[in-house]
């Protein structure tokens, strides 16, 4: 008997013995099964700035993990070797939720990061690990494309402290052609996340010729400002030729700087550029008095002058989770 997975908007109809598009949710004897629960393919201690999170516990370490598989198939995927891999062709560690929490504690990590591929597809593992981590005082952070149905997302958000969600473009055509997905579920996910009170940062990978036109950047920044608020940190990240998009050049520093300027001119308060070194594009400034609050170099925090989440000069409250 076929089963239908209703976790993500693809709602795959899966024949016996086959998997959904994500490759890890399989119909076995008429029951939907996840084959990656407790089997991450990658576990590392990363700086939280690498996710990137710039307004959530800066300077801390996060235990980062992923299983193979993804429900999107972005032609530019930077982690395609694991996101587009089949479980049967891959190596994994046995690491149940209890072990993850223990590893986070022994490695002085303040959070668990479900990242690298997409935590949506290893939903049950993420959910159970998040519940356990929260009960022991470890924070949970998601790095995701936000392509998930509302009901499971609402349930997961109850245990999540921060989410960094990709907004790959403000164009539905882009999502269809580049990611084999659609735009609306992502927008819904972003709005739901912000409304739930979970800390949110948004990232946009700027790809030459596909989503780097000033009007596209402007439309994206306007949507974020109107629907998520001008205080939502917005990251513009450098594209590097990968996977099925090796024919495009890397995003230039000028294009990223222009994107940042456009978003700031639209009223966004915290706009960053990433995957590339920048004099000022990785620092946090007070939107009120322009005081340098957090100075960063790469994934390292060089200076943090915030006082209880406020600007030390003018006292303005800065959006984020600081302790």
């Amino acid at each position: 008997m076929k089963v239908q997975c209703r976790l993500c908007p693809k709602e795959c109809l899966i024949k016996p013995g086959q998997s959904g598009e994500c490759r890890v949710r399989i119909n076995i004897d008429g029951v939907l099964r996840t084959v990656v629960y407790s089997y991450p393919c990658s576990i590392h201690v990363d700086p939280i700035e690498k996710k990137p999170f710039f307004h959530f516990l800066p300077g801390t370490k996060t235990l980062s993990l992923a299983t193979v598989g993804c429900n999107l198939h972005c032609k530019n995927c930077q982690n395609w070797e694991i996101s587009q891999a089949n479980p049967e062709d891959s190596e994994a560690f046995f690491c149940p939720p209890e072990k993850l929490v223990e590893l986070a504690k022994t490695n002085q990590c303040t959070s668990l990061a479900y990242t690298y591929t997409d935590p949506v597809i290893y939903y049950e593992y993420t959910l159970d690990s998040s519940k356990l981590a929260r009960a022991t005082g470890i924070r949970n952070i998601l790095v995701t494309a936000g392509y998930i149905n509302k009901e499971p997302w609402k349930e997961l958000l109850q245990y999540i402290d921060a989410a960094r969600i990709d907004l790959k473009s403000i164009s539905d055509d882009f999502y269809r052609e580049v990611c084999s997905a659609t735009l609306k579920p992502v927008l819904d996910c972003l709005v739901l996340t912000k409304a739930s009170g979970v800390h949110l940062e948004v990232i946009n990978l700027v790809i030459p010729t596909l989503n780097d036109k000033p009007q596209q950047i402007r439309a994206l920044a306007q949507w974020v400002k109107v629907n998520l608020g001008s205080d939502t940190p917005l990251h513009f990240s450098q594209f590097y030729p990968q996977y099925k998009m090796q024919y495009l050049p890397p995003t230039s520093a000028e294009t990223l700087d222009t994107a940042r300027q456009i978003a700031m001119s639209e009223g966004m308060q915290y706009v960053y550029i990433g995957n590339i070194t920048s004099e000022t594009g990785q620092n946090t400034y007070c939107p009120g008095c322009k005081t340098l609050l957090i100075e960063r170099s790469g994934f390292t925090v060089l200076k943090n002058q915030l006082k209880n989440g406020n600007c030390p000069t003018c006292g303005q409250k800065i959006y984020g989770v600081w302790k």
Partner: protein
Amino acid sequence: MTRREFVQFVLKTASAIAVGAYFITDKVSPRRFIRAVRQKKYPGSVKQLSNINTQGKWRG
């Protein structure tokens, strides 16, 4: 109607009903899940957890 025509009619009608029934049940019958059940055995190879203190090579 000859006997041959009658047999052809019956066969065509029966096969049309069977094909229609197959497509309808194929569309409406799947069991729907949001949560998946944990499968204990990993289909790929399982290795020992190695040094995790190095920064991940993957983006994000």
